[in-house]
């Protein structure tokens, strides 16, 4: 029963974007067919799908490399970003020294620096991992540093009265407090990561979706190039979803509290209409539907 409801809820959330996407694709298909457009210029969605499925073994051979570079780069960005954020937070002096450099690192056009990295680090995995790390560490650093800084000063004061050291306060209070913000940054980083690996491969590589795209482009297989792009996008979405799931599991307290608040702040349209009718003083008694609260949130326990 519980599972059924969870599935129902997921479906309710998923169908609007799916419907919109289906409409857009149908329009595209119709446009290409009706306009009799050369598939070299713009292949129709159905053609992209069938062509991609036909050469699935090629894609399969390249996807692993891209995924590997993405994950290694993201892991490096995670380690580097968390470390930098901690340093910025613990030492205001170092923070002032590091911050402008961080911003400068993001001002560098990655497209320009990728070929230079190949010069310096060869054709292997390293330059791609560096590109991914370079793109991903920034949102992680900034979001985590912000989260650490946003800790309630009153809470820090309270822990000081317990006789807690800076380290204990950091570990017990500030780090957990920074996690929601940290995860927001990580989600952004996850979406950038695949694009970073793709870009690094596009410049020069042996395997990977990026270099595959380059081949397909140069051999005028626009349909396969589109397929390549779609697979890259799906990879990004999957990574984003994975991070979101990890976040849900890691921070149940954050979501439980927030969903209850949202539930109260934004009642559903059905409930809102009933409430409105009620406040207008309808002739007949109106029953205001009490929605079952979100599964994660239990109602407040009231005594006194």
């Amino acid at each position, binding site marked *: 029963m519980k599972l059924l409801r969870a599935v129902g809820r997921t479906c309710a959330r998923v169908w609007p974007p799916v419907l919109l996407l289906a409409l857009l694709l149908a329009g595209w298909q119709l446009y290409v067919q009706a306009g009799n457009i050369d598939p070299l210029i713009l292949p129709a969605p159905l053609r992209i799908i069938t062509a991609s499925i036909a050469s699935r073994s090629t894609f399969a051979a390249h996807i692993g490399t891209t995924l590997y570079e993405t994950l290694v780069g993201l892991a490096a960005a995670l380690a580097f970003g968390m470390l930098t954020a901690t340093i910025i937070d613990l030492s205001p002096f170092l923070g002032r020294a590091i911050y402008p450099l961080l911003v400068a690192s993001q001002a560098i056009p990655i497209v320009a620096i990728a070929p230079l990295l190949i010069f310096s680090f060869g054709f292997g995995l390293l330059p791609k991992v560096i590109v991914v790390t370079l793109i991903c560490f920034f949102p992680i650093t900034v979001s985590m540093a912000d989260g650490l800084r946003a800790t309630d000063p009153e*809470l820090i004061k309270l822990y000081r*009265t317990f006789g807690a050291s800076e380290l204990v306060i950091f570990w017990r209070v500030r780090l*957990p407090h920074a996690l929601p913000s940290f995860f927001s940054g990580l989600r952004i980083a996850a979406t950038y990561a695949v694009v970073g690996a793709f870009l690094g491969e596009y410049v020069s590589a042996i395997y990977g979706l990026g270099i595959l795209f380059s081949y397909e482009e140069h051999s005028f297989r626009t349909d396969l190039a589109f397929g390549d792009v779609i697979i890259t996008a799906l990879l990004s979405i999957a990574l984003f979803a994975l991070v979101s799931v990890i976040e849900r599991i890691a921070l149940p307290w954050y979501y*439980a509290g927030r969903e209850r608040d949202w539930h109260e702040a934004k009642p559903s349209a059905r409930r809102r209409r009933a409430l409105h009718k009620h406040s207008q003083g309808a002739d007949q008694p109106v029953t205001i539907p009490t929605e079952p609260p979100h599964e994660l949130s239990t*109602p*407040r*326990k009231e005594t*006194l």
Partner: protein
Amino acid sequence: MNVSSPPAPVALTVEGVSKAFPQRGKPVLAVLDHISLQVAAGEFVSVVGPSGSGKSTLLSIIAGLDDPTEGSIALEGDPNAPRLGQIGYMPQRDLLLPWRNALDNALAGIQVQGVPRREARQRAHALFEQFGLADFERSYPHELSGGMRQRVAFARTVLAARNLMLLDEPFGALDALTRLAMQRWLLDIWGQLGKAAILVTHDPEEALLLADHVYVFSARPARVVLSLDVALPRPRQTEIVGSPVFARLKGRLLRALLTGQDIPLEALALQEQEASQEVAL
């Protein structure tokens, strides 16, 4: 840490404490002006004063978060005793950690102080039983009502306090009804805790109802305007606020609070007499 000594007769002595904050481009801001007060072991002391009169600053200094500009603070007679980690401090907001359940939140202080986990849990357990929170040990803060959250915060304070607790307007953020319930509750359990407390409030009734002794502060810079023994019997009921004794005490307290000086009732009667005589003449 576990050596249990008989409680010292004096829990806290504040001797001539002044505090001034330097301000950029302005004269220093004097907040406390030679405050002296004493808290006996197990005694409940209230501090009443206008808002912004430096009551919270005094608590910060007593807790060891800040140093006085002048004067000394002695914990159980020792002016050099470290105070951080010894005194329970309860801020106005409950400040519960949302990722910890109620019991673990109550353990926050005692855990930092290095009490073994098993012992800490046992003590928290007993306290939850006593506080009527036994069924909510595993509840998370967002599942609890304001009054219950405040009780968990109070449990945290009691556990973290060796002999003295500082309560900084602990009921200030609650609605009137819940506040009343909390006051009643605190009156009930106070006798069993055996710890001294300083309650800061701007509610004269709350101050008198809960305390054995009340200090009234003036507006900034705060001086002690009135030091008043509350000779009401214990155990007390909240209904005592309707008694004539309570009304008299409250009147004196309010006058001190409003005029910034202590006018005993006899003097007031005398003044009124003189005034009426003048009118008669």
